[in-house]
């Protein structure tokens, strides 16, 4: 079975315990933070196992190559500590179950992955994608199954992810551009953390977009709009891909306005919190996030994940901002009229 790579010695020597110190939901000083991680690693009980809300952020905060959240997830599963109501977990496991209903475009050497997000099919239109389209794949057969780490569960992705890797490999692609963070994370963070081989190159679509916009720069008419960006939980698992957001905005002449909850301090959209913990946590996080967005004076709130978008669009709109997927904003910049932009 796949084993999580986690080096206890790094924690013992850790200068800052950043994982828990920076955590937005738990309060730890550096020293207890380190100790707590070590305890968790050793299989001892820890309040963190009860209180962590699965925001994924500590995976990013740890700069020493450890996997604090993956570890928390492992230990919870061992101890049977549930994060989500059983029915919610069950439903999600059913959602991800392969049903032979996948869709393939004309697959080339490079392909777009829509994972299991049907909305992605709708937005990957126009010049930005005519380089690769219609080389794409979609369906549960290609669903990364990372979401289950919200649910104190490693079993599902340990079973399914190797099959997904094999499914993609069988398509004969050399390079996959992932349009969903979670999928990108599966192959660049989770799989390596568990020693799974990934026989293709994974590219984050931010990078792809940035390169396409550079290639199409003659078409760009600067948008001159102020935007805020809603960073999703799974982007925490995607290395420094988030830095592309600012670069992309610069490219299309949009101003990414400074606000409190961005980059490392981004706040969860609340939809997972709602399902797992109910109203208060969701309302608190959404309330602060929305207030912060509104303060910034932005005209658009741009999204990267459709989960966030579903959860926040009505709230964003109620605050007078236009919710839009980042891709749609880029399409507007090159003179296209995406559905979402109308």
């Amino acid at each position, binding site marked *: 079975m796949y084993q999580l790579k986690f080096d206890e010695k790094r924690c013992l020597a850790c200068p800052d315990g950043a994982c828990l110190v920076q955590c937005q939901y738990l309060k730890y000083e550096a020293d207890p933070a380190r100790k707590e991680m070590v305890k968790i690693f050793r299989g001892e009980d820890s309040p963190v196992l009860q209180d962590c809300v699965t925001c994924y952020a500590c995976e990013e905060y740890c700069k020493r190559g450890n996997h604090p959240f993956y570890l928390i997830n492992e230990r919870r599963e061992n101890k049977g500590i*549930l994060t*989500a*109501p*059983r*029915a*919610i977990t*069950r*439903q999600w496991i*059913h*959602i991800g*179950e392969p*049903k032979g209903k996948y869709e393939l475009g004309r697959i080339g050497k490079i392909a777009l992955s829509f994972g299991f997000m049907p909305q992605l099919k709708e937005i990957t239109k126009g010049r930005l994608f005519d380089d690769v389209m219609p080389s794409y794949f979609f369906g549960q057969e290609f669903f990364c199954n990372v979401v289950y780490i919200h649910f104190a569960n490693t079993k599902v992705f340990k079973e399914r992810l190797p099959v997904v890797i094999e499914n993609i490999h069988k398509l004969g692609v050399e390079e996959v551009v992932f349009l969903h963070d979670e999928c990108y994370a599966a192959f660049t963070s989770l799989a390596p953390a568990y020693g799974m081989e990934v026989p293709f190159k994974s590219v984050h679509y931010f990078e792809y977009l940035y390169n396409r916009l550079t290639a199409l720069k003659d078409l760009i008419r600067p948008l001159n709009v102020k935007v805020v960006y809603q960073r999703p939980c799974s982007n925490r698992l995607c290395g420094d891909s988030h830095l592309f957001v600012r670069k992309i905005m610069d490219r299309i002449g949009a101003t990414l306005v400074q606000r409190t909850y961005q980059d490392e301090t981004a706040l969860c959209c609340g*939809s997972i919190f*709602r*399902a*797992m*913990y*109910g*109203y208060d946590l969701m*309302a608190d996080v959404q309330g602060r996030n929305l207030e912060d967005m509104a303060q910034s004076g932005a005209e658009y709130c741009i999204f990267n994940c459709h989960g966030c978008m*579903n959860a926040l669009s009505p709230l964003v709109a*109620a605050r007078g901002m236009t919710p839009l997927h980042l891709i749609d904003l880029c399409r507007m910049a090159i003179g296209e009229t995406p559905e979402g932009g109308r």
Partner: protein
Amino acid sequence: MESIVQALAGIVGKPYVSASAEERYFYGRDPGLMPAHAPDYVVLPRSVEEIQAIVRLAGREKIPLVPMGAGMSLSGLVIPQRGGIVLDMKRMDGILKVNEAARYAVVEGGTSTGKLHAHLNRYYPRLRFSTPDSPAAATVAANVMIHGQGRLTQQQGFNSDMVSGLEVVLPSGELCRIGSCALSDDWFSKGPPLPDLSGLFLGWFGATGILTKVGIKLYPRKKMRDVEIFITDSPDFVPGILYELTHTEMAEDINIFAQPLPLIFSGNHHIVIYFTGDSAEEMEFKKRTLFHALDGFIKSKDGGFMTVGEGMKKTLLDMPQRSATTFADVTKGGGFEYSGPIVPIDRYPQCSRKLDELAVKYDLKYHATARIIDKGHAMMFAFSFTFNRADADMLNRTRMALSEASEYALSIGGLFWKPTLDEQRIALEKMDPQTARLMKRIKEELDPQGIMNPGNWEGI
């Protein structure tokens, strides 16, 4: 025969009488599973006077008379067991008045629930009635006749509790008004503070008279409406969840569904909570209150609020819910039927387990749906099976599963809802004999010749 056709034609006009094989075929069955029996005549009256004349004719000639709305009750209640006349009421589809201030409407005996819904939408956007999820063609009169339930049943009780007056053609042909409308032209109460005579007709399936007008209470319609779904993995938690939800008094309607297909629903019980409001604040307040009511279940991980996607939301908010009807085509077979007993809400777990068992035993596709009645005094629990109309063996298995479900429900203290003739017989047998005798006396007094929807509430 010919002379009856002529006599009927003399009453309603020739185009509106048929003794043809086509109408006799169609009106001799319903979409459910009860055996067919053809009527001799199908008649489409347009007025109260016509109905009175038809009833008198039927009385003289001792011809059975079966009123019919849309025939959607599925349990054979409109199949003319002894032939005779089927009276298709749907030409009498007027909306006679809406009293906005006193919040009631008066409709004719064949007005569809869809039409009333549309009429209020258009002309009285601040009023609504308790729309059931039966196909829009289903009639208001039949719906209250069978003690139906609708969107406001969780708050207000059975749709028949919301009747505010009746006009009935008695089996003698006399016309009779029930409720405040018997004293004035105000239709605000079906009886109280006087003796409530509506019970002589409601629930009798037309066996004691034909409803020609129905007063139906209307209720405030808020500007906004939304839905959330709380899911749990065990039926045992359902009654407790319902208790907490109904305690809030914040929900419009509460339904439950559980079904094995599609896979996303498998293994869970879905408690669908509708709520309404006139402002974003009101909506948020209700939502918060409803969520908080279930915090305990969330904490113990026994249940949680699932994400309801846009598509699903649209399906659920639809009124009537078309998806209730399209269940019939799950096996591409055009049929479904349910046994829908009214049971106390604490029997949900037993019913749910029984349904799972029956589905396996008879190898059928199924779903459970339930609607909470009157803040949790009871619920309608539907043991629903979908079947292929072209598959005789499947039809049989479905019949057996349904009858076993009904018997089971009775054995755990439930009451049959819109019972088939067999179920009516079983209920009468189980009933306190004094009660059954009282029913018999009422029937004999009102319909001494036994011509009105014969077979129903008979046999004691």
